[in-house]
């Protein structure tokens, strides 16, 4: 029997998580092999590479990669490692280049990855074959609607199969755009959090924490004329009813009726009187294109979607794409972007960005308190060996639909994570 990190007693309605998962170096090493090397991991969005030759260098699943659009317009992902002696072949974070040049001995690669030139190649024997020395690539690289993912596992199922029902929710986000095209906006938020990466998964979808962690945000909304009413229905934490939805393969989302304004397309006083008409027009376009029911789904519901293991798309006050990666057991690096419809007007774009900053990001009115909460958890967990279990049973007795303010969706993550960690790799 493989070791289990959870106590999952359905009969008693008890779910406990072994806190060792957040503090153990051994667990982290295993996660690299069993999670990050076995899943589809988000690399970037096609809109970040507008022209042939555009490139971005990133670390994805700990691997330095070059995310680029080659001269033929194909999106590529190469390991950023020279085939000769292993140096990074591109040290810039972003740019446009036909070729990547290794500064160490001058090997040159095309942006399609092919090795084009080796200085002094007459010194090699006939066994030296440039065709076999293209930049290596991750085993798999595929996209769903321009969200590009890589996998280090050659045996992994195709991306769309892996994503399963998450595509329904990705589609719902993309439906904000009349042309069905969303783009990553300029300006990247990159920051570290002194906490285990899995705590960010929990936090990104945990609606139980909103009233306590984000009291000052609720106060700011009230000061801005947006009264967030306390829940009317017994058992609710949030003003409107929302659900936690299991999407299979360890993916899940919250899905709740909006109560805080949406750039597409629910006006609140914070946006100003002058925005009222344009937001009504955006809503009318949705209705015309998608029909009343779907338009209301796009415009008046929020979702925080987790694509296992480390991609979050939050579609609430604005749309944010966020990924994070461990840098040791007690630290993660977070990268977050804003996403918007390509054809958005200048005013609507400015409103979307402003709405983003009311809540999200390192200078937002909510995210810094999330960061603080996660760091408090990590510091508290220093007692893990004598205070071993996190209590995560909230809502376990509930039949049927599950609330976003319970811990059902967190358990979905942990069960899947626990299964993967139990597998041989």
């Amino acid at each position, binding site marked *: 029997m493989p070791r289990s990190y959870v106590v999952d007693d359905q009969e008693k309605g008890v779910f406990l998580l072994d806190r060792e998962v957040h503090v153990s170096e051994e667990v982290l090493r295993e996660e690299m092999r069993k999670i990050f090397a076995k899943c589809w991991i988000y690399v970037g969005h096609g809109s970040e590479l507008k022209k042939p030759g555009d490139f971005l260098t990133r670390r994805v699943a700990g691997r330095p990669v070059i995310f680029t659009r080659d001269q033929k317009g194909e999106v590529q992902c190469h390991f950023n490692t020279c085939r000769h002696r292993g140096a990074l072949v591109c040290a810039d974070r972003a740019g446009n280049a036909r070729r990547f040049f290794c500064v160490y001995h001058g090997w040159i690669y095309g942006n399609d990855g092919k090795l084009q030139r080796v200085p002094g190649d007459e010194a090699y024997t006939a066994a030296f074959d440039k065709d076999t020395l293209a930049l290596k690539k991750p085993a798999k690289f595929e996209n769903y609607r321009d969200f590009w993912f890589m996998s280090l596992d050659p045996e992994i199922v195709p991306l769309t199969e892996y994503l399963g029902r998450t595509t329904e929710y990705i589609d719902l986000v993309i439906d904000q755009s009349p042309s069905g095209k969303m783009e990553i906006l300029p*300006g990247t938020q990159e920051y570290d959090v002194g906490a285990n990466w899995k705590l960010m998964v929990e936090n990104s979808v945990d609606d139980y924490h909103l009233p306590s962690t984000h009291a*000052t945000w609720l106060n700011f909304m009230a000061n801005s004329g947006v009264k967030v009413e306390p829940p009317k229905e017994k058992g609710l934490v949030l003003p409107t009813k929302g659900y936690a939805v299991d999407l299979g393969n360890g993916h899940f989302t919250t899905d709740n009726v909006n109560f805080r304004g949406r750039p597409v397309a629910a006006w609140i006083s914070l946006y100003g009187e002058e925005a009222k008409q344009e937001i009504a027009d955006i809503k009318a376009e949705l209705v015309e294109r998608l029909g009343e029911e779907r338009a209301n789904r796009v415009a008046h519901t929020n979702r925080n979607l987790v694509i296992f293991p480390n991609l979050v798309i939050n579609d609430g006050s604005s749309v944010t794409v966020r990924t994070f990666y461990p840098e040791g057991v007690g630290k993660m690096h977070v990268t977050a972007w804003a996403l918007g419809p390509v054809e958005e007007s200048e005013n609507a774009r400015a409103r979307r960005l402003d709405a983003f900053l009311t809540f999200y990001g390192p200078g937002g009115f909510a995210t810094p308190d999330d960061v603080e909460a996660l760091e408090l958890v990590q510091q508290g967990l220093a007692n893990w060996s004598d205070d071993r279990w996190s209590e995560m049973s909230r809502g376990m007795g509930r039949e049927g639909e599950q609330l976003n303010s319970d811990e059902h969706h967190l358990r979905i993550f942990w069960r899947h994570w626990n299964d993967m960690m139990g597998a041989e790799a």
Partner: protein
Amino acid sequence: MTLHATQTVTRAEVEDFLFHEAALLDEWKLDEWQTLLTDDATYMIPPNDDLDGSHRSSLFIIADDRERIRQRIIRVLDPNCHAEHPKSRTQRIVGNVRLLGQEDDITTVAANFICYRYRRYERVGQYVGNYRYLLKRNGASFLIREKRVFIQAHELGQLGSVSIIL
């Protein structure tokens, strides 16, 4: 902007003002700090990878108008602002002050800064960068019409959040 008109504003005057401002921020006298702002003041921190960008088309770290600044201060002084409770202790060094130009009663000023921030468990962060101010003449002193903070690091990284006023 013309440089010849700077005789009405001296660097020493501007330095006095900036040092006073830095002291108010270090001492958490944020209500008093707000009295240094014009009614249309803005406070901007562009993203590390797009320092020249506009907040209307790029995702900033902070892009506050006057009302948002007021709300930011209400928030950061609230004990429920967990990111700043307990409060950071900060120490700023402001230097390399340069008057870049003057137009009517507005002087454009650049300055370098280091802001050391200490938090629980003696963790320390160092925000390093430069300021660009638009200062409006106000009697013997100035008011801030815009404060723009350029953080020089390639990314926020270990600085984490910007929950203090830089």
